[in-house]
């Protein structure tokens, strides 16, 4: 099948046909909660017409992490060109759109505020409704893209900032069943990767080593909390201590020890997630598990999730990789469902909330 350009796809979707005179609802999504400046246009919450992400990876590598003030400035510079590009690619005009969806939290305060202010100005100038989207609801909505998946289902969101198990009862009705009480899964991976000199972000490098190692080689602690909370700070400390006390050696020896270390470490990160998921799947009775967030790229985690799915007979759903990491399509998708249900539409004031929860 020949690949369609975004313009052709948009033209096809927006064209009225005798059998389908219902115009699709198109939402512009804006996401600036961390370091990526992302803008997308999504039709009916499921079909991505165009998307573009300006990343700050080079800056992050330079400084070994995200520098909030630089991230905010870069957003301010990139929002106009990225939005222009998305509009140009689809050949759509403002009057073709039905709303502007924007992330208003959680995230970096300055970064959120930049995208939110830009979105407010767009709605002020166009008269379109402003739809405030929770970044975490956006991650969950990534599951709707290119699928027919509908709530209720169970969602696992694992990223640099979040580790949550959520009951998605409806498109706008969420119930957090388990959450991290300290560090998020992705955050501890990045910290250990930095300690090992594997660069930033280093989750992928740890994951690659982990697949080659023996997960039972080292015994790292798992915090067993019966309140539906994860805790990774004990694990992080134990791993850092182990690295300080033990020499990884050189060459092949080092590679082998590093693989075992990473595998044991990943196992300790993943185990509490799997345990909590198993308990929650049986408690909720939901038959589908949607997984999103940057850490869902981990092949180690995916392997464990597949085993869980086989054991429990549930349907495992993982969106395409580009919708697992931060993106604007998921924000537009969630925005569409909120608009349809009249939830989170802001005619006037909307503040950026850095520590917003579901």
């Amino acid at each position, binding site marked *: 099948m020949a690949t369609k350009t975004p313009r052709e796809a948009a033209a096809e979707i927006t064209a009225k046909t005798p059998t389908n005179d219902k115009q699709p609802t198109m939402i512009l999504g804006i996401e600036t909660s961390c370091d990526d400046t992302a803008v997308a246009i999504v039709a009916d919450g499921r079909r991505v017409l165009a998307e573009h992400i300006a990343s700050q990876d080079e800056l992050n590598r330079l400084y070994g992490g995200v520098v909030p003030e630089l991230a905010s400035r870069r957003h301010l*510079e990139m929002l106009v060109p990225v939005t222009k590009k998305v509009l140009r690619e689809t050949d759509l005009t403002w009057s073709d759109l039905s709303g502007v969806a924007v992330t208003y939290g959680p995230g970096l305060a300055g970064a959120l505020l930049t995208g939110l202010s830009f979105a407010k100005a767009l709605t002020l100038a166009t008269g379109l409704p402003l739809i405030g989207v929770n970044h975490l609801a956006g991650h969950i909505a990534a599951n709707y893209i290119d699928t027919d998946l509908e709530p209720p289902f169970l969602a696992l969101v694992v990223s640099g900032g979040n580790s949550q198990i959520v009951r998605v009862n409806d498109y706008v009705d969420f119930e957090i069943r388990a959450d991290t009480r300290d560090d998020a899964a992705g955050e501890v991976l990045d910290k250990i990767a930095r300690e090992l000199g594997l660069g930033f972000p280093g989750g992928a490098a740890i994951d690659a080593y982990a697949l080659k190692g023996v997960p039972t080689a080292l015994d790292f602690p798992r915090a067993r909390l019966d309140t539906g909370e994860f805790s990774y700070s004990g694990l992080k400390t134990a791993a850092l201590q182990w690295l300080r006390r033990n020499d990884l050696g050189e060459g092949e020896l080092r590679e082998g020890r590093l693989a075992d270390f990473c595998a044991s470490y990943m196992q300790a990160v993943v185990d509490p997630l799997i345990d909590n998921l198993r308990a929650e799947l049986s408690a909720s009775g939901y038959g589908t598990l949607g997984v999103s967030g940057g850490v869902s790229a981990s092949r180690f985690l995916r392997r464990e999730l597949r085993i869980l799915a086989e054991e429990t007979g549930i349907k495992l759903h993982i969106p395409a990789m580009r919708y697992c990491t931060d993106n604007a399509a998921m924000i537009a998708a969630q925005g569409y469902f909120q608009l349809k249900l009249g939830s989170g539409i802001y005619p006037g004031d*909307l503040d950026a909330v850095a520590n917003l929860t579901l």
Partner: protein
Amino acid sequence: MRILLINTALDHCVTALSEGGKIVCSLETPGRRAYANLLFRQIRELFDADTVAANEIDGIACVNGPGSFTGLRVGLAAAKGLALVHDLPIAPVNTLLNCCLTMYDADVRERMTPLPSTWYVSLLDARNERLYGAAYAAPVSDRPHWYIEHEPWVGAAADFFDCLEQRLTDGVVSLVGGRPNCRPERLVIGWAGARPEYFPTEEELTDRFGLEIAMRSGIYGFAETLVEMAVPVLSGMLPTAEADEIAVLSDEVDLPSTPKRVELTAVNAGNLLPLYVSLAQAERFLATSPSLPNS
């Protein structure tokens, strides 16, 4: 020409509409920097009050710093969003120049007699005993010709005044414009908000410079002076910047110590022009300019 004016750099949220270079409607809210919603409320009210739609304006003038990071971010993001939808040009205006013009305007209104040759010095608290400062000279009868006597600058307060003193005693020709040596008879020094403790007092400066010194507090930059600076840019007399090139001006960003500290310094875009620099520009500039401070 109808212009929307936005100034969110300091403690006042200033919005106005101008037509033919005159303010026709303005809304200003003094107080702390809660701009996130306030700015948009004010812009809506302005449009309603003047029964103007966003697509009926011809351009936007927006203060782009230095000043409150948060305020500037909201103001510029708003300007860019409005400009994108209606394909409008944006004129970025330097906070310090705007404040100098505001002081000049007040001066002209207050004094019945002709003004003596005066330099206007605008100061802003940059925290940690540092300040943003700039000095501009206004020849008495020749309003449009402003000269930069001290380029917009950020650093230790003491260094700024040393530098200013040097310029006064050397009497060197102005940096830009080839203006003949002209030592002023008077300095007007102003700042926004309350006077930071480390700013020198009027007496100290009078003793030091041997000039008539006037101190002004609560200088936020009028909408009137914004128009004055924006009109030449928006009407095409002076070059404007692409929307994506406009960024927060010249603030120093605290970066992790590795590998180097990037000092974002204002790029002087011409004697009369508002100043702007984007992060990308600053980085390119730093990469090719070894003379800039790197510690």
